[in-house]
């Protein structure tokens, strides 16, 4: 049985309801909220600021430090708070997906801290986190050449669908038809890939299809991000 009709009735290339808001954390230098349906991420940016410990300082450019975490009540089963293997990995890939657009050479010896908290999770949390972080960095007045937009695309039941929910992520079918989640991030103006992760099995042609679907979805994310920033004055 192929996966032709989605659980929540969306079209294959249709995202969940997306919402973005800038300036949600008053004490931060920049902050933003990003929502994919029931997934809500809040990002706060501090800096550029003095970097401690000193041996981490880079005299040629500033560094970006990301911290991703899910709040304990964000999932059905209580998540044990604090850093874990999974959140450390996601923090790292988030920093790497944002780095290409930042003009860090303007701030040598400093750090830009990005804190991402997932207050409600329903799959696609790292993508929501990257989107929120991109908005928060722009809001904090950090020089950057572009915004970054992330979207998770999945291959399941032999078809490629955009923005998976938790239910779809757990979809199981024999062999290659089981759900494969492919989170990806794009620089939004020139549509270059800045993050591409893949756990599971996917056919090469399906991966190409997934990237194209992600690129298309990122256009909608760009519009939402621009609108959120422009609404602020």
């Amino acid at each position, binding site marked *: 049985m192929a996966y032709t009709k989605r659980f929540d009735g969306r079209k294959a290339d249709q995202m969940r309801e997306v919402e973005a808001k800038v300036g949600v954390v008053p004490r931060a*230098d920049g902050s933003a909220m990003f929502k994919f349906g029931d997934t809500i991420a809040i990002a706060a940016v501090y800096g*550029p600021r003095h970097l401690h410990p000193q041996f981490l300082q880079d005299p040629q450019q500033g560094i970006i430090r990301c911290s991703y975490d899910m709040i304990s009540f964000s999932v059905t089963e209580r998540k044990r708070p604090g850093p874990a293997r999974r959140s450390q990995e996601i923090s790292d890939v988030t920093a790497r997906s944002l780095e290409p*657009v930042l003009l860090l050479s303007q701030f*040598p*010896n400093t750090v830009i801290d990005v804190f991402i908290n997932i207050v409600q999770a329903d799959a696609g949390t790292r993508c929501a986190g990257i989107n929120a972080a991109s908005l928060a960095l722009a809001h904090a*007045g950090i020089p*950057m050449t*572009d915004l970054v937009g992330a979207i998770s695309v999945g291959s399941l039941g032999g078809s490629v669908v955009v923005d998976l929910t938790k239910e779809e992520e757990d979809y199981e079918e024999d062999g290659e038809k089981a759900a494969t989640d492919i989170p990806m991030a794009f620089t939004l*103006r020139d549509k270059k890939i800045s993050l591409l992760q893949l756990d599971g099995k996917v056919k090469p042609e399906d991966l190409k299809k997934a990237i194209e679907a992600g690129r298309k979805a990122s256009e909608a994310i760009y519009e939402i991000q621009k609108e959120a920033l*422009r609404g602020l004055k």
Partner: protein
Amino acid sequence: MIKKQEFDEQPQEMDGGMDIHQDAGYEEKKERRIVVPGEVIATGQNFLPGENTKRDGQNIIATRFGLLDIEERLTKVIPLSGTYIPRRGNVVIGKVIDITYNGWLIDIDSPYSAFLPIIECKGFVSKKDDLSLIYNYGEMVIAKVLGVKGKGVDLTTRERGFHNLEEGMIVRVNSNKVPRVIGKQGSMVNLIKEYTGCNIVVGQNGLIWIKGENIESELLAREAIKMITEKSFVEGLTDKVKEFLEAKTKDK
């Protein structure tokens, strides 16, 4: 590294004792468009990339979130947010956080720490003297940025008008709003001074020192500054602030 020519600002006149405000170069003009980083703001070789913009092939893109300003061929983006990055010649207000054997470490609310060496202090001070008698821990100091080097900022208080602040209050605003608080050729800050009778020094790092005859006038000045930062891009703000101050001072 920020380009050198951006640091070089016009040397300013130091006439009055307290009149050390720099002209912000701000002009009240038409409605400006908000741009986001990466947005194409002009196409073709007819335009030149200015502050916070960058050329990318045929396009000029914004590299910061802010208001777009195109003057003939020169495009630039006026930032709305961001931390203070010190530039040579800036007048700043800072707090003494440490005393070393040859000077003071000063917090100027920027990513880079600032240092005020004793030779840049008014008069002759020997290294054997007790430095805390000149500027003590926790004191606020008005100083000028002498230079910016990779890791730090050097300050000076040698010229007139630079000293420690003993009374009054400090207000903190975003450093990007400082040009509005000062106004065109100091018009805004002079307006507040005139109506409240307060002595005001605006540091380029966003710290503002207010000293008045009484606490009421200081609070009024603070309120006016808060109003400026909140409505920073409203047309004809100077007139609105004047109206506000007139209404407030009439009551008394």
